[in-house]
């Protein structure tokens, strides 16, 4: 990827919110990149301690390459793992001395192998646990419990789960009734009109609308400035103070001042 840095583009992507962070994407039935790796490792049909991490990295990258874009767009975890494995691969293939503060390729591979063995062990234990004789499925308690004692002592039947769930419900209810409206910090159309109007003298010839955006903005602020300036340009055009043209859809928007151009 070339340049660009941390400034997201204004076009290309929608203005929608990013996907929720905890969304777990099921790629072909896998539960996360580690699960996919473990499954690929099993296909090597060797003991996990003698696994070829290099081969595994290649298999993972090949698997990811086969997925279509629509699946990948939402699966950031898988892509980050792919990037990490590509880096690991380069480290393993070109074993130069890493800087002091970075692990060597062999260390990285060992850490990954450990992760896989630990996950496999936990998965096996989960299976063993689920297969144990379970209460009220395989094993039963006294069917006719008896109670003795004349004096009664009440035992309140309420669990921590019930208590917390109940508080969760109250908190949700409360938050639904209180609507806080925060002051907008996005770029407004009014501000953009005022700004463009002041700059009209600086646009004697065709210039890209984007080059007139305030330089210090990022992220949503930048996007809001872009849309506000676009609307502002249309308004100034309507007032006959600005001309706009665009060569094709999604191409840059050119504009120039009509000040002093009146026939």
């Amino acid at each position, binding site marked *: 990827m070339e340049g660009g840095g941390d400034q997201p583009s204004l076009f290309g*992507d929608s203005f929608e919110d990013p996907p929720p962070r905890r969304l777990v994407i099921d790629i072909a039935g896998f539960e996360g990149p580690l699960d996919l790796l473990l499954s690929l490792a099993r296909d090597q049909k060797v003991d996990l301690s003698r696994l070829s991490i290099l081969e595994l990295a290649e298999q993972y990258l090949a698997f990811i390459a086969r997925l279509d874009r629509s699946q990948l767009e939402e699966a950031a975890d898988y892509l980050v793992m792919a990037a990490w494995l590509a880096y690991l691969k380069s480290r393993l293939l070109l074993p130069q001395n890493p800087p002091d503060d970075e692990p060597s390729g062999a260390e990285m591979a060992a850490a990954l192998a450990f992760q896989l063995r630990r996950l496999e062990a936990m998965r096996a234990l989960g299976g063993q646990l689920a297969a144990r004789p379970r209460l009220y499925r395989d094993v039963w308690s006294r069917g006719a419990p008896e109670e003795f004692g004349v004096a009664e002592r*009440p035992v309140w039947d309420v669990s921590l789960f019930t208590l917390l769930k109940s508080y*969760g419900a109250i908190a949700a209810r409360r938050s639904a009734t209180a609507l806080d409206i925060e002051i907008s910090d996005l770029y407004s159309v009014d501000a953009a009109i005022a700004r463009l109007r002041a700059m009209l003298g600086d646009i004697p010839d065709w210039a890209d609308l984007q080059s007139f955006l305030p330089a210090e903005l990022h992220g949503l602020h930048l996007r809001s400035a872009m849309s506000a300036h676009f609307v502002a340009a249309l308004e100034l055009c309507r007032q006959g103070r600005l001309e706009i043209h665009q060569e094709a859809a999604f191409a840059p928007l050119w504009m120039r001042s009509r000040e002093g151009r009146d026939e």
Partner: protein
Amino acid sequence: MTEGERLIEAVLFASAEPLPQEVLAGYLPDGVALEPILDSLSAFYAGRGVVLVRRGGSWAFRTAPDLAGPLEAQERMVSRKLSRAAIETLAIIAYHQPCTRAEIEDIRGVALSKGTLDVLFEAGWIRPRGRKQTPGRPMLWRTTEAFLDHFGLSGLDDLPGTAELKAAGLLDLKPGFSSYADRAGEEDAPVDVDDADRKS
């Protein structure tokens, strides 16, 4: 001990009702007789803390009648359910303590009925502690050590915060209702795939 004896012992133990002989016989493999098994189990349990008794044509385990005295001497635990209002009130006190009755009502959005605080007080989970320095000087409520004990908490600090409740799936905040803002939080800035396309 034979397999037949083990099986009949387990069946009688787990049953909620006395079991008729025909039902018991149904558990045994063909050709295994029930009577010798019941005889040997009765003989075995005679004189123990639990005895095998026959009620008409049915059989059941019961605690030995002579133990009634020593067993009665202990308090009997009776399980009781707490009302929803009481649970909610307890949760509010736990999270907002010290707080007054009016504050609880404000948070729940309904008036507190007379018995609700009483039940929690009798259970030993809340107690009044001081008064609020506002007109009327209302009592302030707090939770007790017994509250922590019952819920297995090592301290009030163990109670999960709202973010943690949410993470554990115990708090469902419907987005869009809680606040309205068209502000750009830096960390939430949408990540754009087309970074490279940006003209500079």
